[in-house]
């Protein structure tokens, strides 16, 4: 497990929002698992930071939560994306794409610009 990377600062919120958009309502454990799976098990979600991050998103109004029952008949708190969250996701995804794009141009070998 030691070679796994922690989630980068500031990107956890985006990953949570994206996961909820893709999966629909999901509980905290599910979100963590999903993020790890999506990363191809290259990322390790620190649960200690996940729950406060969920709380923060909820306080900001991007996600909402309610208690529900899981597939295994277990009580769990389900988080879902709100309309504001969907908008925020769009905005952040765009910004992220731009950032990676810029970085990619820097990293691309041999393409010198005038």
């Amino acid at each position, binding site marked *: 497990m030691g070679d796994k990377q922690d989630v980068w600062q500031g990107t956890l919120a985006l990953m949570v929002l994206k996961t909820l958009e893709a999966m629909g309502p999901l509980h905290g454990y599910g979100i963590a698992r999903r993020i790890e799976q999506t990363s191809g098990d290259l990322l390790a979600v620190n649960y200690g930071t996940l729950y406060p991050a969920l709380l923060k998103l909820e306080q900001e109004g991007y996600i909402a939560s309610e208690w529900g029952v899981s597939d295994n008949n277990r009580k769990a*708190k389900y988080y879902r994306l709100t309309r504001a969250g969907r908008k925020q996701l769009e905005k952040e995804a765009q910004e992220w794409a731009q950032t990676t794009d810029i970085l990619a141009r820097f990293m691309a070998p041999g393409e010198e610009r005038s």
Partner: protein
Amino acid sequence: MRSLRVLRASLARVRGLFHRNRRERELSAEMKSHLQMHIEHNLRAGMTPEQARRDAFIKLGGIEPIKESYRDRRGIPMIETLLQDLRYGFRMLAKNPGFTLVALLTLALGIGANTAIFSVVNAVLLRPLPYPDSGRLMMVWATDARRGNTEDVTSYPGFEDWRAQSKSFEGMTAFTTRGATLLAGDQAEIIPTVQVTPGFFELLRVPPATGRTFRPDESEAGASHVAILSDAGWKTRFSGRTDVLSQTVRINDQPYTIVGVMPPGFRFHPERVEEIYTPIERDPNRGHGFLRIVGRLRPGVSRSQAQVEMDIITRRLEQQYPKTDADVGANVMPLTDAIAGEFRIGLLIFLGVVALVLLIACTNVANLMLARSATRQKELAVRAALGASRGRLIQQFLTESTLLALAGGALGLLLANWSARLLVTTLATHVQLPRLQATHTDAWVLGFTVVVSLTTGILFGVLPALNAASPNVNEGLRESSRSATESIRGRRIRSVLVVMETALALVLLAGAGLLLKSLLIMRSTAPGFRTENLAVVNLSLPRAKYGPELDRVGQDSARARYFEQILARVTALAGVRAAALVADLPMGGGADSLSFHIPGRPDPSPKKPFSASFNIVSAGYFRTMETSLLAGREFSEQDSANTPGVIVINETAARQFWPGQDAVGKQISLPAGKDSSVTLTVAGVIGDVRQQDLGTAAHPEIFLNYMQPGPPGHGSHSWYEPRPSRLPSPPRSSPRSSPWIMMCRSLPS
């Protein structure tokens, strides 16, 4: 957008402060369901139950830290800590009821005393006067450099000059106070009244509650008499009836038509609540000061600018009228201060004294807290060992002390509410201090109490907190089994506190001692007469029937007959030993002064003759007062208009005017009219009587006999120089306003 998000999040965090228990339960449930799902997942992946559990717990990485960071995000950590400290503080205080009770009572007394005095100060000094834009209202006193009087009255022409020449004021108006006899049926009563110049109410911008104010022509001589009732007068004399307008009251045996009623809170008499306002008649005598002047500053003009201008004006008038206006200046003072008068200083001193008491209370409670922190060494050591920082421990201690101080403040406020009322009633029996009755707990008093409580809490909490915040963990933990002993440092701080407390108490004691000493000096200073069994009766005879009050009496005047009768009747009363009349009450604060020549001796300076205070008394006055007769005789019934004029002088006068000689038989002459004079012979010398007050040394004083004719024009202003009384008592210089006073000596009971 961003700010909206921050706002929404902040609101959510504020909400997070509440329903703490439900939120805690939810968090625990969420963590639990997380773990169980993880374990189930692990089991499905083929781990043994033991492994599955272990892995889940490791990956979650400690539930408590997660919960802690979750909590920090949920609410507002600072407030959470505060709430936690408060809860803890409450528990600690509840656990030590003895300490809490003593500390609470000490603080309640200290804060309560401060709040009580402050609520009086607030009502009397701080709250704006109930007149629109009252901050610009100034009292413009005259000053008298010769007598060192800075709050003197002004003559009518002087007032007119000031009003016409000053540009700093929007307007000036004048008033004076007088006792007037109100007749109701066959009952006569002397009531406090205020005489005002036209435009008085307009300058103060207070419209009457009903009716109208005075018209300019109503202050002219011979105008029909009109009066305005004060709220108090309306309520006491007319029981607040609505049909008072154009009713008639008899004041000094003259009918006055009521034209208006002033609203409650309007008051100008410095000592008593006036009942009636009447217009002032213009008095052309520049030497007769009797007016107090109120001015309203123009917007943008400061008090000191107005003062500078008034200085220029008074200097100009001094050159113009050297005879009457020499050494006369002006003193511009905020009306609020003028109305509070000499009580201002007294109240502020009182406030200082109770502040000292509070400081002593602070050191006391700090001492108690220090003593208690010795027994809390173990608790503190444990908290320090568990990682509580120094700042955190100080915060905890300060929270506790502030909690204690606020509780003490709340209790003190209750105490103050009650004691301020007591203070007001006690003060009110001695003096009708303006606005005293308006003392109540308002937002300012509440704010004052809160600020004082908080300051107090920090003041007495900071030393114990600093001391406790660096506990010796090793010692503290080891001492667990033994009874706790106090550290050396703790003992040292406590010694410092004890020294401070003693010093403060000494200051208080010295202050109280000084007060007591001046009281004792006053008691041991002989007033010059015996005060026991002495009664004072104010008499005021209507001018219309009996002539001007101090006018030459003459033996067969109606006044003389009236006085003769009343003295005979009073002396005949069972238990009355003697009775006599006097114009100015001894120690009443004021006396007029008399200028005279001594035959065969040059005047002290070409322009200024000899001068002494004077008083007018009836035969038997000194016997009634039991003043010691040092030489000669006192006035007797035989002294009359037909016998040579005699005077009685006091010891100081005898020593000053005839040093080393026997004053009896010596003569003075009073200028009377243009070229004539009256010669009076000293019949007797009496011991000094304090005319001013006990704190002021005796002045030379001359007593005239009320039955003997003074110089012609006695009672007009030709032969005496009026001198206003020491303020704030009403000026006594107007002879028409000064009622006669009867002194009655009863037998010892």
